């Protein structure tokens, strides 16, 4: 193939562009309406292409990372030996508008061992912490006993309310093993309110709300226990 004509053509075009790009030429062009419109659109086009490509390249990866994150959270409250399935892909979505968990529908992740539901786990919210909503994730074994609770995010005051984080205090572990059966309804409260859970000195509200939210979570599980366990047996 003969590239020469193409090359000369290209060179010519390049030369033209060069001339066009001369500051003097641009000087004249800049005040023109059409030029302005085109330039803005041009930059928008370039940006869109750039981001489009970047998005294409990263969408999958990001999805993967988010799943990894979630999985890591779930693994914290459901010991690995309790299941042999992939928690992320064994889910049931239940209506939870009445359970006061902070969402109209709650995704329940099922931990199955050999197809039987061994434990469940779900995210929920204590909507009325001291400084705002507190999101939690909780694992419950099939009998309704707590396997673990973790705080995902909160906006409580550093130094006071943030002792609900596992990295700040072991307080959140005190729920392990508790259920609606081994702790009475009245006892689901902080000590100050005649319950069995510790409060933090100077900050009662945060733990109080967390305790009550966890109780609601357990009640939600209890209400749906049958359905959930049944999903396992069916499969």
């Amino acid at each position, binding site marked *: 193939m003969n590239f020469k004509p193409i090359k000369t053509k290209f060179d010519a075009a390049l030369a033209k562009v060069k001339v066009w790009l001369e500051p003097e030429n641009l000087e004249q062009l800049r005040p023109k309406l059409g030029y302005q419109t085109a330039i803005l659109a041009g930059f*928008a086009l370039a*940006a*869109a292409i750039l*981001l489009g490509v970047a*998005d294409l390249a990263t969408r999958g990866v990001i999805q993967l990372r988010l799943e990894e994150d979630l999985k890591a959270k779930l693994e914290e409250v459901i010991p690995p030996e309790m299941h042999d399935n992939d928690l992320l892909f064994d889910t049931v979505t239940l209506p939870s508008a009445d359970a006061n968990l902070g969402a109209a529908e709650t995704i329940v992740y099922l931990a199955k061992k050999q197809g039987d539901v061994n434990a469940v786990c779900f995210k929920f919210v204590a909507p009325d912490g001291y*400084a705002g909503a507190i999101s939690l994730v909780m694992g419950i074994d099939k009998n309704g006993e707590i396997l673990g609770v973790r705080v995902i995010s909160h906006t409580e005051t550093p130094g006071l309310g943030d002792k609900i984080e596992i990295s700040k205090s072991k307080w959140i572990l005190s729920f392990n093993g508790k259920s609606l059966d081994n702790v009475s309804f009245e006892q689901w409260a902080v000590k100050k309110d005649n319950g069995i859970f510790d409060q933090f000195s100077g900050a009662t509200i945060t733990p109080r709300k967390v305790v009550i939210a966890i109780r609601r979570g357990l009640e939600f599980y209890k209400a749906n226990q049958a359905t959930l366990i049944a999903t396992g047996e069916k499969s």
Partner: protein
Amino acid sequence: MSEYLLLILGTALVNNVVLVKFLGLCPFMGVSNKLDTALGMGMATTFVLTLASAASWVLEHRLLIPFDIGFLRVLGFILVIAAVVQFTEMVIHKTSPVLYQVLGIFLPLITTNCAVLGVALLNIQEQYNFIQSLLFGFGAALGFTLVMVLFAGLRERLALMSVPALFTGTPIAFITAGILSLAFMGFAGLPIK
């Protein structure tokens, strides 16, 4: 009705954009030397912020979500906001040269006034409907204007006080802003949100 009023009040006082959310601080510091200017800036921002809230809601719900291109959100919003601001700038330049001179470089900077983008993004995050978005934007701007005006009043008085040389101007203004924000913490916990 009262729900909307509470939304505006809550946004303006309890979650004040400047003092609590830390948005729009540059104009807050930059254009608050004089009461009149602060008021002007507040009104310009109110106009832009309300308009931008509405525009970004439309953009989000009519383009970004239907076409599943959420990654363009920031880009799209900022583009729309920039256009609104530029437009406002031109109008002010034409109609009131003095105001233009006074607001100076800050009008273009409204574009980058974090408050505008921040409020637009918060709007989406809070999943407000159109009316709520509009009111949220308005309330935020109201809060912005309120603290601007209070702060300008304080600074006008400061200008007459014998503040030690080390602290005159910016340092004492920051400290005063800090105390103002301390005072606004008193609104925390009010059930208006």
